[in-house]
């Protein structure tokens, strides 16, 4: 919303104060002011009122005229002018030689053979309206030679307040409310607006008006006739223009002016069309043409203003085309009303039509404002059009009132909330300047909240704190730490495991952490040949590619791999993120925090890559849980899973997730030659597994004995089968078994395992170790393992 400093100063004397500093303080204490401040009239000088004394056709141009202009300096000046509205006796704005208009400095100028010694200006050229249809018309009363700026309020400071920061301040949607803030900030007095006395019309007949639906809280109306003026006074048009509105006609401009001044939207009906005002909703939907010429679908929830049964306006949003002020309107029925904020809001959403009026109504305007707004309107109307005649009394129905709010609190409350001490007198002064009625005795305060703040904004004591502190200034706060006691803080297991996993993956395995989205990007997945699996969907996504939530991070990660194939011949990525696996029994999303790891390599064999991933996972279990993983072969459940070497990952019997190789169809879409493996585990399940902790095993003081077994392994026998053979026999004496050599040909799969024996109590004898080894070899033989003699 644009605000005019001149307008604010109508209501508060700010003379002698730094206006820019005040605007800055307003931004820190009230609402956010945009950075750019406009100094209107700054680029305009030496433009005076001049009278056109003669008009001649230009011999060579149909458009141009040759004028002689009296600019009040005792001589006639030759001017060449292209405006269509030039006529003898007309007074207009004249930029003399040397005058400045924006970037231009006026100098003698040749126009088709004639020299112009100055320029007659349109309002648009002067920057005071958007009217460039002709040169400015100035009323006869103004003496020629007068500087234009001394006649009209051209010089002004305009600043813009971010509408969002006014969401909770219905009282700040007009200059008067803003002026109240400036008065409080400057410590100056707020002047009451000049109003017409409405009581003098009390004997006139009422307007036929009835609220039939309490979505209308209040409706105030009056009828005025014999309106002769059609164009608004220049100063009114300048203010409207500076504040971002177009001048339309006198009556419409005045309603807009009132809205910008008091914050009260008003509507002027042509009284010929509105004789029996009824405010109500209709049972059935219908089509209604608003004054912007658009046909809109009105449903049974939309509150309408009607002439008996004929709708004439959408309440709080926009008037109808049929009842608007037209050229020959001389009698008007004025609406100054208050509607339910939520209802207006919902209607604007349904109609997808937001107006200056609805924007204000949906903030919960003060219903007390409707009558003063009418009084102000009448005052202004008559000020500029002395012949108007009021033909009704004020007709006002106040259906729903906001209950008054009085808040009581003590000094301690303020001290506790602020953490500093703001003395009682300052509190009283601040609140009073904002329109609160304060009673202060001892440490107790009793505060009556003004009507313009109770509609939503100030309803409880915490709200009062804001009023006191914002005017006090947050910059003036002393900053203190708390006095609260300290207690040890323990991290959640999930959180600490998550951080340890990240460290391990980055520092030990040089993986890269990436982030992605919680939904599946269907176009990216489609390019890889991965169908989007059915899952919970977004109800209102605007992007057709993101309809479905992901149930696994892997597909997203494969898209990321595809994106990075050129980054390096070999890399690994991971993400700890959330997925949704359908709905739970309560119909809520079954959300899981998952770790996904994908390794990509153009240089490593699939076997090496697969085991690298297996070891990354094993390392997590070993480092964080002091435990070992087990794997169970499983069947593919997703399009991207290779049917071979797909394994469930288990830790202490808890299923954590799955690891496998990317299905060749999809792998080839990513990179024709690369190998890709993936794993995904549930981080919360992992965190839930017990950390077996460190168990110190005192090293034996007696020598160890090593025994190497070289074995040819038949197909189908797993290492875990071999392991059983020695673990069963070795018992406590077998300290470790590790692969020291492998030898593979097409026919032979040979590994050499070193068994290490030791006892904490004695030196082992060769015979007792040999006896164990013999049994191990017997076990192995039963599994058709051939022992190669050393």
């Amino acid at each position, binding site marked *: 919303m644009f605000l005019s400093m001149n307008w604010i100063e109508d209501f508060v004397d700010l003379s002698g104060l730094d206006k820019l500093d005040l605007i800055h303080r307003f931004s820190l204490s009230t609402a956010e002011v945009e950075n750019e401040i406009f100094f209107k009239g700054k680029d305009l000088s030496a433009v005076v009122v001049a009278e056109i004394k003669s008009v001649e056709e230009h011999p060579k141009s149909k458009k141009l005229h040759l004028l002689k202009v009296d600019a009040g300096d005792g001589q006639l000046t030759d001017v060449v002018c292209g405006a269509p509205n030039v006529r003898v006796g007309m007074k207009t704005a004249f930029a003399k030689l040397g005058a400045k208009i924006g970037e231009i400095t006026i100098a003698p100028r040749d126009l088709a053979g004639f020299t112009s010694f100055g320029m007659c200006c349109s309002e648009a050229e002067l920057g005071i309206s958007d009217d460039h249809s002709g040169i400015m018309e100035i009323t006869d009363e103004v003496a020629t030679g007068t500087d234009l700026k001394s006649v009209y309020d051209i010089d002004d400071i305009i600043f813009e307040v971010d509408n969002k*920061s006014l969401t909770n301040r219905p009282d700040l949607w007009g200059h008067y409310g803003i002026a109240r803030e400036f008065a409080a900030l400057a410590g100056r007095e707020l002047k009451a607006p000049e109003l017409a006395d409405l009581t003098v019309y009390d004997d006139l007949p009422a307007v036929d008006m009835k609220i039939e639906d309490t979505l209308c809280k209040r409706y105030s109306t009056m009828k005025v006739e014999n309106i002769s003026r059609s164009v608004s006074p220049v100063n009114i048009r300048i203010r409207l223009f500076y504040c971002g509105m177009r001048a339309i006609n006198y009556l419409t401009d005045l309603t807009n002016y009132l809205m910008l001044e008091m914050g009260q939207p008003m509507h002027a009906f042509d009284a010929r069309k509105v004789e029996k005002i009824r405010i109500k909703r209709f049972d059935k939907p219908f089509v209604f043409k608003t004054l912007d010429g658009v046909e809109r679908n009105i449903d049974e929830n939309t509150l309408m203003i009607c002439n008996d049964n004929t709708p004439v306006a959408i309440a709080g949003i926009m008037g109808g085309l049929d009842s608007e002020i037209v050229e020959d309107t001389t009698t008007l029925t004025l609406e100054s009303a208050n509607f339910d*904020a939520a209802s207006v809001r919902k209607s604007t959403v349904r109609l997808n039509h937001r107006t200056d009026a609805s924007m204000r109504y949906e903030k919960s305007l003060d219903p007390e404002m409707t009558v003063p707004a009418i009084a102000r309107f009448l005052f202004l109307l008559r000020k500029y059009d002395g012949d108007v005649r009021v033909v009704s009394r004020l007709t006002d129905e106040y259906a729903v009132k906001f209950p008054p709010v009085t808040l009581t609190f003590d000094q301690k409350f303020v001290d506790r909330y602020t953490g500093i001490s703001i003395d009682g007198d300052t509190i009283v002064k601040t609140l009073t300047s904002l329109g609160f009625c304060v009673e202060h005795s001892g440490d107790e305060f009793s505060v009556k909240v003004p009507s313009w703040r109770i509609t939503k904004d100030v309803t409880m004591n*915490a709200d009062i704190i804001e009023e006191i502190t914002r005017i006090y200034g947050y910059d003036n706060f002393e900053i203190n730490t708390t006095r609260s006691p300290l207690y040890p803080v323990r*991290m959640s297991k999930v*959180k600490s495991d998550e951080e340890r996993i990240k460290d391990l993956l980055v520092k030990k395995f040089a993986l*890269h952490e990436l982030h992605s*989205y919680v939904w599946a990007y269907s176009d990216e997945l489609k390019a890889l040949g991965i169908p989007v699996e059915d899952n919970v969907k*977004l109800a209102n996504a605007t992007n057709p590619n993101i309809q479905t939530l992901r149930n696994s991070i892997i597909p997203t990660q494969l898209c990321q791999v595809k994106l990075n194939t050129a980054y390096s011949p070999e890399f690994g990525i991971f993400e700890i993120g959330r997925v949704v696996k359908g709905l739970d029994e309560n119909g809520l*999303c079954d959300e899981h925090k998952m770790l996904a790891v994908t390794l990509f390599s153009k240089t490593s064999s699939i076997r090496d890559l697969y085991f690298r991933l297996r070891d990354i996972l094993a390392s997590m279990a070993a480092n964080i849980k002091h435990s070992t993983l087990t794997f169970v072969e499983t069947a593919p459940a997703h399009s991207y899973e290779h049917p071979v070497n797909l394994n469930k990952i288990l830790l202490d019997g808890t299923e954590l997730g799955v690891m496998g190789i990317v299905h060749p169809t999809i792998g080839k879409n990513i990179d024709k030659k690369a190998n890709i493996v993936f794993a995904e585990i549930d981080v919360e399940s992992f965190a839930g597994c017990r950390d077996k902790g460190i168990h110190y095993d005192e090293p034996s003081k007696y020598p160890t004995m090593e025994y190497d077994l070289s074995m040819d392994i038949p197909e189908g026998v797993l290492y875990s089968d071999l392991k059983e053979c020695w673990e069963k026999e070795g018992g406590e004496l077998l300290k470790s078994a590790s692969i020291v050599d492998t030898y593979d040909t097409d026919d032979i799969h040979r590994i050499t395992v070193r068994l290490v024996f030791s006892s904490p109590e004695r030196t082992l004898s060769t015979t007792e170790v040999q006896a164990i080894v013999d049994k191990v070899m017997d076990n192995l033989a039963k599994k058709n393992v051939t022992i190669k003699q050393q």
Partner: protein
Amino acid sequence: MDERILKLKEELESKVSEAADLMGLDAIRVGYLGKKGSITSLVKGMKDLAAEQRKTFGAEVNKLKEYAAQRIEERTEELKKKQIELEIKAMPKFDITTPSACSCGSYHPITLVQRQCERIFKSMGFTVEDYSEVVTDYECFESLNIPKHHPARDMQDTYYLTNGQLLKSQTSAAQNAILRKYGPALIENGTPIRAIFPGRCFRNEATDACHENTFFQMEGVMVDKDISISNLIYFMKTMLSEVFRKDIRVRLRPGFFPFVEPGFELDISCLICGGTGCPSCKHSGWLELCPCGMIHPNVLREGGIDPDKYTGFAFGLGLTRLAMMKYGIKDIRDLNSGSLKALSQFTDDE
């Protein structure tokens, strides 16, 4: 002196001096001093000599023996030294300037910034909480004093899900749960609630260099008997100064958020110009960083905490924004791009 001894000594002297390595030298030692060595045989031949002669001869042989042992010992040391010298000479000189092949992993920049913030708050006694991404309308709005049709819902374009839940549009969605989790300890034992909860938020809006539909925030709350606005400013200033590792000036402006009262927008002095005004801060000297405020009494009440007895502050720090400011990331979309060219640069950061 016996001629044999003299001859042997001369012979030994030249052989020892000529020995080229330790192995050769050992053979010489065996040749003279071994069981069958020439000196040993001299001793053996002594039994044939007369007693008188034997005594003199014996003394000379012993001398020779000592001499031989000493010479061999000396030569051994010489040879060992020579061998080490050779080994040193044999060591090739490496080009230390060849590129190193160290492979570094990387953290997502959000992780780094998040950890920095978490560390600071942990050191001040805050617990770190985790929260789901899918939440209910109650969690995200109702419990936060944002009833249905409240205009504040307009401020955020929320992603709703087909089951009626929604993707949390703000980390404040966890506030109610946190208050309920730690409220009893506050009420019963006087343990203040101090918690931060970093998390991912979602807004249904078009993306560009400055806007993302998915971003990270870190919410923080503190509730105790006398928590004040002054405390809030202290914590925000301290935390931000730690994050940016320099003294940061902060300022509060009134800001409207239904879940706080009073509510503020917190600005920090521009990191680029320090407050004098530059293009990054649109010449204002300030950067808008973080909404915050005193927790609204209705929100405390909804969390089971009596607002007449307790007060608290809450803030919602934009982690994504912070990461961008800290690392000079200009396009917000880089963060979720999955591009290793961009994101592999973020090795660990303190």
